């Protein structure tokens, strides 16, 4: 399998009043085409910073070391002007809270359209057709009409569908999903996961799936990277990691999953 994304010894450092702090330390992983890699860890473990580093969207002040190669091309150290062409076109991202991640002042149609038109030369009419297609693909009913709706007029699950339609509108090779189902209730969560898996089969997109929810990871990822306090504590085949965790932290994470047959202590 040819590797789509190769991250090697990635270190992200933030300056603080008490000196520089490494929020991500020597993280390495690879994502193949049509493959899903899960990044797991608790809040503050550096999993979101890792994905933002890939997108070149780290907050100002952050410095990076190591290497991030997408399709063999080094991304670290590239000027923002060039990264802009990568973002959306080659790699795109969906976020945890679809309501706040969409601009409340514009229709979802426009927000998808502007992304398409940022990367493809085309008429507005052509872009509108693509928008309707994208909305159809993620299962939004009456896509022509709903394209003219504002984000607040959709349900939570539908908003995340809109985000997915937007992220995939330019057919990127890599999709980074940063806790895309955390803000959704369980049935909607399952629908969104199913949608992502289905779209991946169709398009062959490589996916990085960031979450703190191991149950979600086990259903979607082929490989898992476990992070704790910015460090990579375990990396390997998903089944293997879950069956025989080598690190105490992974074991602890696995044990913290509530099970239906657990004894309830009141």
């Amino acid at each position, binding site marked *: 399998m040819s590797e789509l994304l190769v991250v090697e010894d990635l270190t992200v450092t933030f300056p603080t009043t008490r000196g520089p702090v490494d929020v991500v330390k020597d993280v390495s992983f690879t994502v193949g085409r049509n493959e899903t890699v899960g990044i797991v860890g608790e809040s503050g473990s550096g999993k979101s910073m890792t994905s933002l580093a890939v997108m070149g969207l780290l907050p100002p002040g952050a410095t990076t070391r190591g290497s991030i190669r997408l399709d063999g091309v080094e991304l670290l150290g590239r000027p923002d002007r060039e990264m802009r062409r990568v973002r959306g*076109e080659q790699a795109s991202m969906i976020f945890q809270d679809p309501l706040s*991640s*969409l601009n409340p*002042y514009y229709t979802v149609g426009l927000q998808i359209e502007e992304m398409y038109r*940022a990367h493809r030369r085309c008429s507005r009419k052509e872009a509108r057709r693509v928008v309707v297609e994208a909305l159809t693909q993620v299962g939004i009913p009456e896509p022509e009409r709903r394209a003219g709706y*504002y984000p607040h007029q959709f349900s939570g699950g539908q908003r995340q569908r809109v985000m997915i339609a937007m992220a995939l509108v330019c057919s990127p090779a890599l999709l980074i999903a940063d806790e895309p189902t955390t803000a959704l209730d369980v049935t909607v969560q399952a629908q969104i996961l199913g949608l992502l898996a289905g779209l991946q089969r169709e398009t062959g997109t490589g996916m990085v799936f960031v979450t703190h929810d191991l149950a979600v990871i086990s259903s979607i990822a082929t490989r898992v990277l476990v992070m704790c306090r910015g460090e990579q504590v375990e990396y390997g085949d998903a089944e293997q990691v879950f069956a025989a965790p080598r690190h105490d932290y992974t074991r602890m994470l696995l044990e913290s999953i509530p099970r239906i047959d657990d004894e309830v202590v009141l």
Partner: protein
Amino acid sequence: MARYVAGRLAGLVFLLLLVCVFTYLIFFKLSPDPALMICGKTCTPDRVAQIRASLGLDKPFLTQLWDYLSGLVAGRDYGSGPNLVHCPAPCLGYSFQSSQSVTQMIVDRLPVSATVAVGAAVLWLIVGIAAGLLSAVKEGSWWDRTAMGLALGGASIPNYVLALTLQYVLVVKLQILPFPSAVPFSEDPLLWFQSYLMPWLVLATGYACLYARLTRANVIDTLAQNFMRTARSKGLSPALTMRRHALRPALTPIVTIFGMDFAALLGGALITETVFGLNGIGKMAADSIAKNDQPVIMAVTLLAAFFVMAGNVVVDLLYTGLDPRVRVS
């Protein structure tokens, strides 16, 4: 929508009625007898009674109030017999001081106040928003700290201090501007501009400083929103990201505040107009209060209340167009 507007207008009329009743109560019941003031020093009780009758002050309070309100809507007559004067609607009575029709006084002076307000508003919007934007984009920079420091200082200077200082420096010392006089634009455009320049500057300074700080805060707040991260993740150009995604959410709240500020200014800039001797509504208010000219005080209060309330309604209506989440039902 039509029902909503009708409801808001009905509310506006009701509030104006309340303002009317309270102002009438305060100025006609609690302040010194206007008949005595008009009559002067060499006054006989007969003469006072006569004046009271001609002003309608001998009637019960509610009758007086009713006469005033009906005069506003339908016009009214003052005096009787050969002395009868008809005051056409909207009748706000006659000035105790100059015997002029108050309605006519307002018609004459409103353009002056409007000119002051519009000119100042244009200035403070341009300067305030531009400075605030620049500060927000270059947050923490040398420019940001200087501009915000100046804005804090500028917002703290009382208008009369600024007005008198400007007048002293520009008119008296440097003699680059004439003393302001309210000439119409059509008569002498240059003198018109020179006359209004100082009032504009004085009024705009305070507001520009407030608006700069407000704009900066709103823009910084918007830039930190999740949807800005989304916009960047989409590979949009920084210009489009800023113009489309940041500016509209950041500037929409400013529309609300501007609507209120501007409407309040239309009701007269009391201090600025008085210092520069511009015959606007503000100066009229100051003069009428100084001389206890009750019909004028009534009129000025009602006018200011009307502008503030109308400004509110207009802003609310505008908002339904500016923010898609706000819809009237």
